[in-house]
Every structure is written in structure tokens, then in C-alpha cells.
């Protein structure tokens, strides 16, 4: 743990000095996790790519002013999350201008996303669907802790929550995900029943 902290301090120091190799190492380490986080939050590949681009540019611009003990994972995920929140606000404003609809966090995209389509198996598809139906506040805490592998302390820093509040939110999010997955199973059973009855009626 201390060795990891020391390595990270060393990496931060090199980043502050504008070392390209340090940037490349951090970029290769965190890029897939950040992109996955943003893609599952926004449910759009193009948006996730734009926000990822902006996150890294922010790191480069802020690098000389980073504190020596910066936790890079927490820093990067905080910036990515804030950029996503700004994107939501902009989108909500656009929606308001176009349709005069109330501003809100984006609803899950209808139908199957490219991520669901690329999911390896049925269980993964079920989890992706259930995740997509969660509120953003529940989804983001699960994505940070359970999917991206941030420690509870890092996730609490990203979300700006005290440790106890994070624990409660995580527990609530897990319960809601379990509910969504049960509902998904029930829907699948009902749909398969309907299609069987429909088949018999046709015959």
C-alpha cells in the first residue's frame, strides 16, 4: 500500500514536471477504466469519448498545480464525473429550449445500447440493462466502487460524500440493482410466456 502511494507520489511529481513518459503510463493505466465509467454513465460512446478527451486535457493543463499527495484515480474520476454532470446540464438546457420539457438527468436510452450488444453473456446483459435503469446517483456509486475498483475512500472523495453517507448510498444502490434484476427476470418470463401463447394462437 505504502509502496503504491510512493509510486503514485513519484508519478505525480513527474507529471508536474511535464514528463511525457509519466503521462503515457497514467494514460494507459486509467484510460479504459475512465472510458468504461463514462460510457456506462452517459450510455453513449461518442459522448464518453468527448468527455474522456476533455478529462485528459484537464489533467495536462492542471498537472503543474497538482498537490504532491494527489490520488490520481480519485482526481481523474472526479473530473470525469464533473464533466458528465456539465454535459447533462447542457443537454437539459438544450432539451428545455427545444421541447420546453423539465430539465432532468438523462433518461436511459431506449433499446439496447452498443455496450449491451457487445456484452459477453446473458448475465452481463441483464446487469447492463439493470444498471441502465438505475438513477444516475445509484449507477455512479456502483460504477465507481464495484466496477472501476476504487476504494470506498476514493469513491467518497469523487462523490464529495462522507464515508458513512457513501456506505448507505452504496447499499441502497445494490438493493435497487437487485430489484431491477429481479424485475428484468420477471419481464423475460412474461415475454417468453406471451410469445409461446402467441405461437399457439397462430397455429
Amino acid at each position: 500500500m505504502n509502496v503504491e502511494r510512493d509510486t503514485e507520489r513519484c508519478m505525480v511529481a513527474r507529471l508536474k514536471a511535464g514528463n511525457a513518459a509519466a503521462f503515457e503510463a497514467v494514460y494507459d493505466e486509467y484510460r479504459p477504466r475512465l472510458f468504461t465509467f463514462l460510457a456506462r454513465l452517459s450510455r453513449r460512446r461518442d459522448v464518453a469519448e468527448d468527455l474522456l478527451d476533455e478529462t485528459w486535457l484537464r489533467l495536462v493543463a492542471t498537472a503543474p498545480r497538482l498537490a504532491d499527495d494527489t490520488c490520481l484515480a480519485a482526481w481523474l474520476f472526479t473530473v470525469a464525473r464533473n464533466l458528465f454532470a456539465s454535459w447533462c446540464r447542457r443537454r437539459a438546457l438544450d432539451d428545455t429550449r427545444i421541447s420546453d420539457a423539465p430539465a432532468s438527468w438523462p433518461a436511459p436510452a431506449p433499446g439496447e445500447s452498443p455496450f449491451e450488444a457487445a456484452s459477453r453473456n446473458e448475465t452481463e446483459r441483464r446487469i447492463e440493462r439493470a444498471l441502465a435503469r438505475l438513477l444516475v446517483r445509484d449507477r455512479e456509486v456502483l460504477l465507481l466502487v464495484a466496477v472501476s475498483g476504487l476504494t470506498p475512500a476514493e469513491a467518497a472523495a469523487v462523490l464529495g460524500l462522507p464515508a458513512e453517507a457513501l456506505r448507505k448510498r452504496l447499499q441502497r444502490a445494490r438493493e435497487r440493482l437487485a430489484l431491477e434484476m429481479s424485475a428484468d427476470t420477471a419481464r423475460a418470463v412474461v415475454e417468453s410466456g406471451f410469445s409461446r401463447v402467441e405461437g399457439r394462437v397462430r397455429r
Partner: protein
Amino acid sequence: MTVDAMDDELRALTVHDVSPAAAERIRSRCLAALSAHAEATARRRVARTTWLEPLAAIGVSLLYLVAAVRASMALLQ
């Protein structure tokens, strides 16, 4: 599904990545920005030292001047 089982499933979800072309584009943009920042910092450092040298010279000259004036005053007295 238990909490542990659910966490295992979540941990096992596919990690996605941007296309290699997009990854390379972002990398080059950031590296260009990084080198621009480094150059700007170096320029600022050089500008600081260019100001410091004449300032130090003026300071030392003033010290010599004060010392000379004091020596002259002592001689006159």
C-alpha cells in the same frame, strides 16, 4: 442474488475502451499540450532569470555606492 455475488458480477463486467485511433488522437493532443506547457514554463523561468540578473547588479551597485558615500562622509568629518 447476494451482495457478494452481485459485486463479483459487477467486477466481471467487460471493460470497454476507445478505438485505437481515438486513443492515439487523445494521446497526441495531450502530449502536444504537455510539451507546450513545459515550453511555456521554461520560457517563464528564463524571463524570471533575465529580470533577476540586472536587478541583482543594481542592488550590488547601490550597496557599493552607499559604502562609498559613508566612507567619504567619514573622511570629511
